[in-house]
């Protein structure tokens, strides 16, 4: 047997195993990919199509092309002469949502960073307990947690009772059904998402750099902002993304704590598929929300990409 024949057989064998591996892989991946493509990604395509159709009388759509949904987002057409006038109602709901989500992100960062740092500097066994305590609420029902928050910030809730008993306030503070309530609720809902990535990057912090900072005449604040914060930046960025994106699309928090009066994008979209029944407009609003999320993700990719270089 010549060497060349051996090589050819070997190549054929390798080729055969590679092909078999590809087939096996395809079969293994198929169920997960088919389910997600069919039930999660294909519907997004349908949503795009729906956003360009005309609403049906009793919900659903009529198959007639129209860009009304996108026009309606910005303008209101006059009932009598059909002229378009700028309508700020929907834009302001979007701006409010962005503002609330940003506020909640900053609030969660201000609370989450010290917490994550505190946990990261604890002895190993205690860290696991703290982390477990932070993660546990994440796995309990968000609706129930929000309801629990509603119970304590109500006019007759425990916070007002305690404050009144202590004589700090004479009449109950109205928190529920205000922007403050939504803001508190968003922080409360998504705080664990902030702490976990922050912890992941603070845990790896090399404290000899902190020591070097002190040796070089820095005080605590300087060490914090010039040494620790820059080193924790990947965690900060990840945590902010993980809070901002779900906060932007929040539904339960504004529904329960905003009392349906203080709308956010999520509630507005859901309403279009319920009571007011304008599916194309709801689809368009959902796509605009998606676009916002994609923009945030792209900014994130650029920032982290630059860091990596």
């Amino acid at each position, binding site marked *: 047997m010549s060497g060349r024949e051996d090589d050819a057989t070997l190549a054929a064998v390798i080729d055969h195993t590679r092909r078999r591996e590809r087939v096996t892989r395809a079969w293994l991946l198929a169920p*997960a990919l088919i*389910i*997600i493509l069919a039930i999660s990604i294909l519907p997004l395509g349908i*949503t795009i199509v*729906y956003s360009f159709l005309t609403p049906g009388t009793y919900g659903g759509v009529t198959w007639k092309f129209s860009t009304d949904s996108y026009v309606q987002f910005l303008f209101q057409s006059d009932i009598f002469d059909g002229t378009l006038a700028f309508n700020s109602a929907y834009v302001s709901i979007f701006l409010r949502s962005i503002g609330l989500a940003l506020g909640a992100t900053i609030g969660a960062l201000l609370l989450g960073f010290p917490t994550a740092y505190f946990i990261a500097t604890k002895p190993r066994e205690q860290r696991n307990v703290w982390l477990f305590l932070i993660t546990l609420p994440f*796995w309990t029902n968000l609706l129930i947690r929000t309801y*629990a928050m509603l*119970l304590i910030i109500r006019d007759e809730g425990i916070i007002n009772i305690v404050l009144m008993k202590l004589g700090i306030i004479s009449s109950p503070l109205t928190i529920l059904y205000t922007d403050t309530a939504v803001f508190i609720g968003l922080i409360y809902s998504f*705080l664990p998402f902030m702490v976990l990535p922050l912890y992941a990057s603070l845990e790896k912090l090399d404290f000899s750099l902190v020591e070097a900072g002190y*040796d070089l005449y820095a005080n605590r604040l300087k060490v914090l902002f010039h040494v620790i914060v820059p080193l924790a930046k990947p965690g900060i960025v990840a945590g902010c993304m993980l809070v901002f994106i779900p906060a932007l699309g929040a539904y339960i928090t504004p529904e329960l704590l905003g009392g349906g009066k203080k709308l956010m994008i999520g509630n507005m979209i859901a309403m279009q598929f319920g009571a007011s029944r304008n599916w194309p407009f709801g689809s368009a609003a959902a796509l605009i929300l998606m676009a916002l999320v994609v923009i945030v993700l792209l900014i994130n990719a650029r920032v982290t990409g630059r860091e990596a270089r």
Partner: protein
Amino acid sequence: MTEAKTVPLEKKSAWRPGGWARDLKAMPGFKTIAWICIVTLYLPIIVLIWFSFNENRSVVLWTGFSFDWYAKALENDGIRNAAWVSVKIALFATVISTIAATMAALATTRTRPFAGQGLVYGIINQPLMIPEIVTAIATLSLFALVKKLTGLTGIGYLMLAHAAFCIPFAYMPIRARLQTMTLTLEQAASDLYAPPLKVFTLITLPLLGPGIVAGAMLAFVVSLDDVIITLMVAGPGETTLPIYILGAIRRGITPEINAVSTILVAVSILLVVLLFFVQRRMQR
């Protein structure tokens, strides 16, 4: 391991040019904020659980301990039906998503890196990256279309929707387990002429077991707790426990809601605590 080699930094207390740093790692006030976070995260739930045992109708005034509201909740047909629907959907979603996730995890860790691997990860994690309300209305639109074309109705739609968003949650721990498992045992079995199927059933699967259990538990908890997708997709009569609770809250607050909520929270916490121990065993 690395900690043992160097002198622990916090022990080195000395005057430093920047000031008297007794503890290098300490930051004033951080401990207080950490405790504030823990109290904020737990106080509302503790109050909720506490008042579910109140004998009074009030969710404000504590008058005495009783199990009345639990008895009332368990007698309530609406709650019992909703609980049954929730469990049915969660079981179906868990089985389907765990099987699909296990297969996908094997494909992404036990074969050579391939072109499009990033895309596959992207697709599997897609349900996590899109705001839930968008997935909810998109799924509703698809199902409305399918219902119109085929005339099929039923709880199957809800089950499939749950299976889809549970896949990434089941996939994560299973893949993590596969990545930390060494190939040595599998290779040894192959070297001893075990056919691939035997290697899989006798070596890979038992080792992967804890990962699969963890994935299934996460999927179950996530399905049980879902509100938004269920709210949009559910047809008439397909009320799950969270949807029932949402409706009840809108109608008015009663300690009965606290009792049902406490049961649901207890189930989730129990599963997560179990999961915690499963994962600790995995690390060993």
